[in-house]
């Protein structure tokens, strides 16, 4: 649905977006992930025809963003960062205004607006003045606006920023529901959000794509061996030696030396040493109180990727 090729945007001497290429397939929720200032908003602004690219091409639903800007805009529902709305208007009045701008035929307008109000759960505030709404409601009014002309593609720029945890949950739930009917491109710097919502992630840093895969694949790709946390009752010295002797174990760290010892075990990549650990501890008359494998979270992946990049460039 969205195809981006060698897209670049330069401000003075700085490339905000540096020749990136990616595709968003129909029905997919794609997450653009990156630290602040990575070029997420710029990319979205180019795709929504708010500003043109310095070079490269982008097509949305088959239309070129530069040449067929109006057709592109008809296919897109765009939620800008921080959801700018007119504070003096009432919710329903605003949605009617937006529906008219987006050329929703007057016969369908009322039905469409009712649908959006229903979907975004803003029925109880539909006659309120936007300026008096809480951030969570404003966000949902913004989402209702993006849906009002039933676009094929939704582009959401940081849809959950500045919300409280409950509101974040509601908005995420809503996005998830919308993902069933629309192709969604969303940007964020909140990692659990991506893990929860997106089928595919693009990690972008300093205008460049540094990784592109599914969230779980990214995590496994970067797993440099798993870590195992262990709590054992028994002779500490003996246990430690036994653990170090297991094939595939790279490093054993022993802390809390006493009757009950805690160990951190680093294993080699792709080797599961948990069963060997169990049997060797039993052989040494130890009792395992806890054994836990810690998975590498997307957070670590993100940190690793974006800081690696920094080391390269500096």
């Amino acid at each position, binding site marked *: 649905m969205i195809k981006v090729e060698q897209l670049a945007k330069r401000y003075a001497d700085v490339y905000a977006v540096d020749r990136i290429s990616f595709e968003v397939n129909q029905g997919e929720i794609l997450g653009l992930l990156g630290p602040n200032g990575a070029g997420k908003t710029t990319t979205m*602004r180019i795709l*929504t*025809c*708010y*500003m*043109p690219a310095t070079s490269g091409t982008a097509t949305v639903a088959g239309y070129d963003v530069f040449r067929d800007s*109006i*057709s592109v*805009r*008809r296919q*897109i529902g*765009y939620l*800008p960062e*921080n959801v*700018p*709305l*007119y*504070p*003096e*208007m009432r919710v329903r*009045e605003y949605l009617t*205004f*937006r529906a*008219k*701008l*987006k*050329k929703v035929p007057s016969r369908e307008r009322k039905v469409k607006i009712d649908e959006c109000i229903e979907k975004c759960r803003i029925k109880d505030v539909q006659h309120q003045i936007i300026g008096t709404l809480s951030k969570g409601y404003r966000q949902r009014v913004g989402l209702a*606006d993006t849906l009002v002309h039933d676009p094929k593609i939704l582009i959401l720029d940081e849809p959950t920023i500045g919300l409280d945890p409950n509101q974040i949950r509601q908005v995420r739930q809503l996005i998830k529901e919308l993902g069933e009917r629309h192709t969604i491109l969303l940007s964020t710097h909140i990692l659990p959000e991506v893990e929860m919502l997106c089928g595919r992630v693009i990690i972008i840093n300093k205008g460049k794509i540094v990784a592109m895969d599914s969230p779980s694949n990214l995590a496994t790709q970067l797993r440099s061996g798993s870590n195992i946390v262990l709590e054992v009752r028994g002779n500490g010295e003996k246990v430690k030696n036994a653990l170090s002797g297991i094939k595939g174990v790279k490093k054993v760290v022993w802390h809390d030396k006493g009757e009950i010892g805690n160990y951190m075990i680093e294993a080699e990549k792709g080797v599961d040493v948990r069963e060997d650990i169990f049997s060797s501890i039993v052989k040494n008359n130890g009792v395992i109180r806890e054994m836990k494998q810690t998975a590498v979270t997307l957070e670590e992946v993100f940190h690793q990727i974006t800081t690696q990049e920094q080391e390269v460039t500096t």
Partner: protein
Amino acid sequence: MTSTGTIFQREINSYFLSPIAYVVIAVFMVFSGYFFSVMLGLTQETTLRYSLAYTQFILSILTPVITMRLFAEENKTGTIEPLMTAPITDFEVVFGKFLSAWALYNIMIAPTAFYIIFLAWVGHPDYGAIVASYVGLILMGALFVAIGLVVSSVTKNQIIAAVIGIVALLILLVLGLASSGNEGWFYSCLRYIGTYDHWETFTKGLIDTRDVVYYVSFTALLIFIVVRIVESRRWR
């Protein structure tokens, strides 16, 4: 062009939802009424000519107050972004905003019709001159609004938009006044650019094509410039 209508409607509603429209109309009525009564008392002539000459100064100050928010507010709050990513052309947005401010301007000067009724009651005014004056007033309004629109489109700050707009309009006014009585191509150029001379013909009861062309073409040029400015974010 239906989008122009949509924008127009929103802007007009927004004027009357905020205090701006009421404040501007009230201030205008206070001053225009004052000038009307003073000039009527001084000249004892049943004409709007003299009071309207002073009214120009008030209009130069109030029109930028009407137009200041049009783009500056959207630039500041960021609502320009959803607006410009809707499937509408830049011209439709600009023209809708222009029409709404021009409409408010006309609503603002409408209560002066009462003075005509008053004049008709106390004497025999020259209706031809009055009609011509209003044609001039409305055309001048279009130009003033267009100037205010240009200023508003280049800034995020409404106060700056208003102040620069006022200064620009006063300069345009003074340009004609200051060079009157002087000869030579330079001064006649200034007189042509300034609004005062064109406006004066209307108050005399003359609708001269040259003056109509001046207002209409100047306004059209400025609207074109605003469209370009709004577009310019695309190549900045």
